[in-house]
């Protein structure tokens, strides 16, 4: 019996419910109170629940799936993202940084940032708050945290269940670095999320977002679309026994605003966007956006 089949049996035994029944609900509604959930139109109130369903059902297989779907490239993107930010308290400073990783779920970016700061600047004082709207994803991150070297009793890392559009437990002007990797796409109201980011950052704080984006080159885009629409849901089905969640992922990627449009949304939230404003990774499959609160 193949490895794949064993995975699918395991996830089934975890009692993950298929999403189709939830999706069919409301798929015809229209008007002001609707938003998109992949290619479907749903009530704004329901999107949060639906996205919650997707991530609850993929939480346990999240990393395996990411590796399989991106052929490991997502790790390179994330480490590139961390290097670009080059964050950390410089030697000789007495002002530790307050990191906030939104939609941080499994903690990849959070631990990566702390690791970079310690390795490069010998910074062992900066603190990290990981927030995610989904308790299941956050639990994965906490589980990893318990086993990591950051769990040294210093309380530098904190986990909170928070809606990224409100961040109601995070004070105004309290954070130096706001990161969000592959999360903002799932917000019901992306602009509200950006506004919340602006609110919680200190003046001089950095907003940094790593997200799927649009490929410019039409030939490469054709191959990419073919791959993502025909192969990814199939892989989801075989590996995680959850086709619908992965169908949602590829559709939501397609629906996410283009680089320039997203850049202007960041500006609209009040951020100063440095020259060019974004960096494309792998032909634009993903891109890094940066904004500064002045």
């Amino acid at each position: 019996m193949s490895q794949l089949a064993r995975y699918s049996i395991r996830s089934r035994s975890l009692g993950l419910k298929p999403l189709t029944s939830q999706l069919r609900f409301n798929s015809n509604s229209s008007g002001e109170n609707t938003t998109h959930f992949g290619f479907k139109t749903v009530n704004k109130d329901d999107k949060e629940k639906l996205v919650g369903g997707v991530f609850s059902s993929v939480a346990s297989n999240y990393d395996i799936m990411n590796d399989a779907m991106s052929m490991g490239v997502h790790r390179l993107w994330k480490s590139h993202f961390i290097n670009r930010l080059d964050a950390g308290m410089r030697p000789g400073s007495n002002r530790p940084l307050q990191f906030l990783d939104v939609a941080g779920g499994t903690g990849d970016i959070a631990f990566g940032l702390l690791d970079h700061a310690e390795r490069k600047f010998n910074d062992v004082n900066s603190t990290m708050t990981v927030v995610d709207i989904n308790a299941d994803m956050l639990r994965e991150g906490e589980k990893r945290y318990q086993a990591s070297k950051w769990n040294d009793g210093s309380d530098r890392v904190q986990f909170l269940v928070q809606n990224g559009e409100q961040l109601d437990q995070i004070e105004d002007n309290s954070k130096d670095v706001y990161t969000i990797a592959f999360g903002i796409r799932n917000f019901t109201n992306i602009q509200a999320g950006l506004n919340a980011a602006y609110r919680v950052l200190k003046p001089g704080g950095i907003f940094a977002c790593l997200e799927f984006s649009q490929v410019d080159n039409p030939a490469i885009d054709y191959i990419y679309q073919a791959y993502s629409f025909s192969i990814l849901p199939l892989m989801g089905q075989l590996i995680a026994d959850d086709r619908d969640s992965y169908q949602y992922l590829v559709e939501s990627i397609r629906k996410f605003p283009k680089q320039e449009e997203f850049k202007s949304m960041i500006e609209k939230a009040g951020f100063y966007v440095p020259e060019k404003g974004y960096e494309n990774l792998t032909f634009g499959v993903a891109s890094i956006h940066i904004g500064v609160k002045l």
Partner: protein
Amino acid sequence: MLRTPVRRLAVRKPISLLSTIRSYHSRDHKIAGDEPLESQILTKSLEYVPTYGFNSNCITRTIRDLNYPDSLQAIISKDGSSPEFKLMLQWLIEQRKNLEREIKQPESEFHNIADEYDRVSYLIKKRLELNEPVIKHLTFGISQLVIPYYLSQSMEELHNLSDDIAFFAGDGSNDFAWYSKRMGISSIYVSSELYQLTDTSKDFKNTKKFVDDKVQKLNNLGNAYNSAEQWGMFNAISLVNLIRSQLVRG
């Protein structure tokens, strides 16, 4: 019917953008490094260069002086070039602006120099004088410029400098001399700067003499080129006339 494709072409942004920027038109000649925040921080950081050298420490200190968190360095590192290179490039840009400021002073002795080549020589020497406060860090700075990954940006800045020098010297060439002059000025500048790094004479006297000699050679070369061109032209016309006269004779 004909109008549609034409209009559609006009709307396609990337093409129209590429075709409208002409850096040789003065209105499109962008003064590099004038974007607000990044270059402000870099320019401010240059004040620390004489003390710390071309080092990310200068940027860290500036950001701290401005009372911003250390994480703001991300806007310097975001495009992947090293802070050392960024500082060096910004320094070159600033010195180029300083050179312009200097000669725009009404009392500058530059205005008394009539000859184009003397002006070139004056400008190069003035520019090299601006190196003096950071001369001991300059070797490191130049080594950043020649890293292959950054070479195109460094060459562009070198061209901007020689273009400015040629312009202020009053270059009016409209043929291939336009290129050869700028290339000549660039190579003189680079070789003189390298000479300056090892020059131990008082007030860099030897470097100044070196510049004068090199510019003189460029002038001679230009004269030689012009003479050769004239001689060639004369002979070509004579040849044509000779052939014509032979043909008329039958």
